C-alpha cells in the first residue's frame, strides 16, 4: 500500500513577535517546527504501516522555504520512508487554493497513493482548507475530522468522524484523503535510529517545473484571495477597571455592577 502524508512547517510558538511600527513579523525571533497537528497524521500513517506488517511505503510531502526540509525530516524520524519538499520562489504567496493545487500536482507526480493523510489544520493559518481542496483537485473522496480508522482493506476504508454530538461512521473507497484530529492517536517521539535515518535520508527538492505546475495557478497569481490589511485588533470597550487591594470592596462593586447590568 502506498501512503502519503502532507506536512507543513510552522512558527514554533503562537507568540510570534510583530514589529509594532511596521506590522511585519520579526522572523529572526522565530523558530520553526513541524505543525503539531500534522504529527497525528504522520503517526497514523506509521501505525497503519505497522498494522500492514510493513507492507506499505510512506512518502512525506511538504511545501515551503528550504528550511522546511526539517519538517520532512521530522516525519521521517518518526517512521516515514521518504520525503519531498516542494520549494520554489514562484510558489511564494500561495493561498490555500494555490497551495492545494501545487500539492495536488506533486501528488500526481509522486503517486499514485492509496491513502493520503493530512492534519486537521495548521497552527499558523488555522484554516483547515488545504486537505479538502487537495482531495477535490485530485477528484478523490475526502474524509475530514477522522478520529479512528475502523477497517481498511479490499480497496475500502471505514473511519469514524468526530463531528458535533458524536462520531459518524463512514465508508469510502480508496484512494481517499483523510484529515485526522488529535483524538486519533498519541504521536510517538522519534527514536535515535529514526533520527539517524532522517539525517541520512536525502530529501529531494521539487520545483514548479518538476511538478508541471501551471504558473497561473500558483503563487500570488494563482491565489484568489489577497490580504489587504494587517492590524492590531481594535479594542472597543473602555470599562471600569478597579484595584483589588480591598477585595471586599472590589467584590461589592462587582456585585453592584452585575445588578446594574441586570445579570443578577
Amino acid at each position, binding site marked *: 500500500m502506498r501512503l502519503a502524508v502532507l506536512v507543513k512547517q510552522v512558527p514554533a510558538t503562537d507568540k510570534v513577535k510583530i514589529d509594532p511600527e511596521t506590522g511585519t513579523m520579526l522572523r529572526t525571533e522565530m523558530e520553526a517546527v513541524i505543525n503539531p497537528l500534522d504529527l497525528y497524521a504522520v503517526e497514523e500513517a506509521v501505525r497503519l504501516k505497522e498494522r500492514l506488517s510493513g507492507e506499505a511505503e510512506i512518502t512525506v510531502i511538504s511545501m515551503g522555504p528550504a528550511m522546511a526540509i526539517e519538517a520532512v525530516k521530522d516525519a521521517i524520524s518518526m517512521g516515514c520512508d521518504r520525503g519531498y519538499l516542494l520549494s520554489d520562489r514562484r510558489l511564494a504567496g500561495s493561498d490555500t487554493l494555490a497551495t492545494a493545487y501545487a500539492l495536488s500536482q506533486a501528488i500526481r507526480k509522486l503517486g499514485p497513493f492509496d491513502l493520503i493523510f493530512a492534519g486537521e489544520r495548521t497552527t*499558523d493559518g488555522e484554516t483547515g482548507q488545504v486537505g479538502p481542496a487537495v482531495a477535490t483537485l485530485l477528484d478523490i473522496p475526502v474524509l475530514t475530522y477522522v478520529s479512528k480508522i475502523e477497517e481498511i482493506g479490499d480497496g475500502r476504508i471505514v473511519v469514524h468522524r468526530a463531528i458535533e454530538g458524536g462520531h459518524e461512521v463512514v465508508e469510502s473507497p480508496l484512494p481517499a484523503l483523510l484529515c485526522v484530529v488529535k483524538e486519533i492517536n498519541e504521536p510517538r517521539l522519534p527514536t535515535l535510529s529514526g533520527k539517524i535515518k532522517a539525517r541520512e535520508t536525502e530529501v529531494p527538492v521539487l520545483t514548479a517545473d518538476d511538478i508541471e505546475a501551471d504558473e497561473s495557478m500558483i503563487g500570488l497569481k494563482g491565489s484568489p484571495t489577497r490580504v489587504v490589511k494587517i492590524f492590531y485588533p481594535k479594542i472597543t470597550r473602555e470599562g471600569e*477597571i478597579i484595584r483589588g487591594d480591598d477585595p471586599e470592596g472590589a467584590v461589592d462593586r462587582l*456585585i453592584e455592577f452585575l445588578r446594574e447590568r441586570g445579570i443578577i
Partner: protein
Amino acid sequence: MKLEEYRGVWTLGEQRDGRIHTVSYELLAWGRSLADKLGVELATVILGHNLADQVQELIYRGADKVYVVDHPALAHFSVDPYARVLTALVREYRPEIFIASATTTGRTIMPVLAAKLRTGLTADCTGLDVDVESRQLLQTRPAIGGNVMATIITPNHRPAMATVRPKSRRPLPRDASRKGEIIFKRFDEKMFESRTRRLGFIRDETAESPVQDADVVVAGGKGLKDGRNFDMLFELAELLGGAVGASRMAVDMGWIPYSHQIGLSGKTVTPRLYLAIGISGAVQHLAGMSSSEVIVAINKDPDANIFKVSDFGIIGDLFEIVPLLIKRLREIKGKEGEGK
C-alpha cells in the same frame, strides 16, 4: 469572469437530523447586514430531506429567498452530493457572496466547493463587511498565529466565500410578518450519488459542552495554577446559572477537557456575561468571546490584554476575590430564597 454578473448574498443553511440548526439563523444575521449594504437579496440554500414544513422559518429570520433541495441522499451531510448540488446552484444563480458556518460541515464543504469553483475562501472570519463602491467582501480574521488581524478580499473571483464561527453572532429576532420566496430545486438522480457511505452514528452527549448555549460563561486560564481550582469556577458558574469555559492554556495543561475551550481553536461564545478569571486575553482567546454582551475580568496583571475588552475589571488576586464573590452570591441567593 465578469464580476458584475454575480449578484446577491447567499448563506448555507444547515440541518441536523432533519431539523434546521440555529447556525442557519446566525448566518442570516451576518448576511442581512451585507445584503442591505449592497442593496441586494439575501438567499439561503438548504439541503436535506423532509424540510418543507420548516423552511418558512428562514424567511422569518431574515432571508428573502430560500432555495431548498430535498432528497433522501441529502438527509445527512455527504461531500459528493452536497458539492455537486451546491456547485450547480452557484453556477446557475451566481451569488457574489456565499457564507457558511464554521461547523464540521461548513469547514468540509466550503473548501471543496471553492476548489471546484476555483474561487477564494476565508476561514473563521470574526468580521465581515463590504466595500460598497468596489463591492468587495472584507473578511477579517486573526492571522499569523492570532496575534494580529488580517483583512482579506477575493478581488477577481466570485462568489467570495467565507466561513464564520458558530455563535459569533446572535440570530435576528423572529419576524413572522416577513415575506419571501421559497424555491424547491430538483436535480437529476445522478447528482445525488456518493462515493462514500454513512454506516452509522455513535452519539456522545459529552462531546457537546453546554458552554455555547449558556447565558453566563465563567472561564478560567493560566492564573488558576491548578486543575483543582476549576472547582470554584464550577461553583461560581452554578450560582450564576452558567457554564464553565477555559483558555487554551488551561486545556493544554490538562486542567479541563477540550470541549470547554474558548477561542480560535476552541468554541466561540456570545453570552450575556463572560467572566474571565486568570485569563490574560491572547488575541486567539478574544476571537472566541469578544462579542459577549458584558465582559468582566479578574486578573492580577494590570497590563493583561483582557482588561482592554472588559466592561468591568478587578486587578487583584483571584484566589482572594473568587471565594468572596461566591460567598456574596450565596448570601444574595439565600436572601432571595427567604423572600419566596
